[in-house]
């Protein structure tokens, strides 16, 4: 027993981390299902509705309902990826070819370490975030690590030694560089407002959420929110910015030469980025787990209160994922030069202007109210 007590501080974080990764991976696979379902509904189809697990799928009414909703489909998809023949084309650089999918997925999974997903009130009555690692520089870590994800794509494009993946990789890197700037600049005003001098939170996402108790940032920083959202679509390589894949002109883009589970890893990485992006947008602009603007925290200090805050946060994240999917099946793809000119000629100046404007407002506010 003493031994357990001694090891508990080390075991618990591992347990938490494993739990979080499994939940996150589960969300990824069900985002794929959500994508397929929403896509089919938008196109007037029904989507995957045939996969049935032996016992669970044969419960009288519930089984048919779950099957019709395609709840068992992700299992079938995953198994398909596992059991397919592993093909490594002869012309690739094997080491980097194998490394690329891992490099694509790892950053997406790493960023969730600093992602707060709820709040609890500790013994001293102080509100604390539910997060794996509560660090002050949460936002910087996410910005830094999530942009590493493009290395996986560039490496995949290069290691495939074939022209279409190569073009996809180049496009992805150019796009990532262009939109990273606008994204960072759009975030600065948010933290200039949220992390006022003397606050305890710094660049942590928890601080950003706590500062939105009365008013969500989305409402009084709409321009930042818009720029961040557009940049987010570009960073996650989602339509209308899926330059790296663009099936119509680049076959499959960077993952043309990939099959079976290695392709599956890229696939999961894309959805991991989508979930991370949605969570980030919710935390920064949609008030995180705060209930409604002006009605921040109606759910008490008990355990149930914490669970409710997590539930409300996940609801918001799911709506955001739905928005991502909805957007994908609404808009056509931009041309490559349009993507570049949108990033450099429109979003970047807008973000700079927004930053300057907010700086002036903050200076005026500080001068006249203190």
């Amino acid at each position, binding site marked *: 027993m003493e031994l357990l007590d001694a090891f508990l501080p080390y075991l618990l974080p591992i347990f938490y981390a494993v739990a979080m990764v499994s939940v996150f991976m589960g969300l990824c696979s069900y985002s794929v299902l959500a994508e397929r379902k*929403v896509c*089919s*509904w*938008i*196109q*007037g*189809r*029904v989507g995957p509705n045939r996969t049935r697990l032996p016992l669970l799928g044969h419960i009288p009414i519930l089984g048919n309902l779950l099957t019709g909703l395609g709840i068992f489909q992700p299992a079938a998809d995953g198994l398909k990826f596992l059991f397919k023949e592993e093909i490594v084309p002869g012309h690739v650089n094997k080491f980097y070819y194998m490394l690329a999918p891992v490099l694509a997925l790892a950053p997406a999974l790493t960023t969730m370490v600093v992602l707060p997903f709820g709040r609890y009130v500790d013994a001293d009555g102080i509100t604390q975030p539910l997060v794996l690692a509560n660090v002050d520089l949460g936002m910087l870590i996410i910005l830094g690590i999530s942009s590493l994800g493009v290395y996986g794509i560039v490496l995949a494009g290069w290691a495939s030694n074939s022209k279409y993946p190569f073009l996809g990789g180049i496009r992805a890197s150019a796009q990532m560089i262009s939109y990273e700037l606008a994204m960072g600049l759009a975030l600065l005003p948010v933290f200039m407002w949220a992390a006022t001098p003397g606050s305890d939170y710094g660049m942590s996402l928890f601080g950003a959420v706590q500062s939105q108790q009365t008013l969500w940032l989305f409402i009084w920083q709409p321009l930042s929110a818009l720029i961040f959202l557009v940049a987010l679509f570009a960073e996650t390589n989602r339509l209308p910015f899926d330059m790296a894949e663009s099936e119509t002109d680049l076959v499959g883009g960077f993952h043309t030469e990939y099959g079976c589970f290695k392709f599956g890893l890229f696939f999961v990485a894309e959805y991991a980025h989508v979930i991370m992006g949605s969570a980030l947008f919710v935390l920064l602009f949609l008030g995180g787990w705060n209930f409604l603007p002006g009605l921040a925290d109606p759910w008490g200090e008990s355990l149930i209160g914490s669970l409710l805050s997590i539930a409300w946060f996940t609801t918001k994240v799911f709506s955001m994922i739905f928005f991502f999917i*909805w*957007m994908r*099946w*609404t*808009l056509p793809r931009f041309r490559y030069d349009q993507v570049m000119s949108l990033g450099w000629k429109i979003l970047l100046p807008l973000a700079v202007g927004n930053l300057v404007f907010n700086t002036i407002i903050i200076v005026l506010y500080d001068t006249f109210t203190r």
Partner: protein
Amino acid sequence: MAKTKVLERKPLTPMEKTFLPQILSGLKTTFGTMMQKDVTLQYPEERPNIPDNYRGVPTLVKDPNGREKCVSCQLCEFVCPPKAIRMTPGEIDAEADPERAHVEKAPKEFDINMLRCIYCGLCQEVCPEEAIFLQDVFSLSGYSRKEMINNKEKLYELGGTLPDQHGKWDKKKAAEQSGNAH
């Protein structure tokens, strides 16, 4: 030459240049279609509605009394563009089937090779006895080439019985019996 009308293209308003209103209206459209009923037909369980004049697999039909209609005139065999129909004419045994003895002829063998058939419907069009019909069977499969050749038995099984408006041979027999042939 047709007159071309040149449409005047108005310059975009500042709001339209941001593309945001168009994106919003696009989102509205897709959300609208999401709310609509699915058009999918759950195929093996649900079957499509086949119109009456559908040209499916060619079949041989019997008249309402369950008698063979084909008189093996071989017109369908001659007209068949891909030569899918092969027929061996035979005679009706007058002693075994006295009622139809006056028809004289019936096919001994009747094969339609469904690997050759192009579903053109010319056999149905040309048949003077209205004995061959392209009906509503549209999905046909088999494990071997031989299985894809429909023999006479199979053709009658697929065809079944169709109503006959004319009763041609019955009329002929009645006319003969009343001494009024031709």
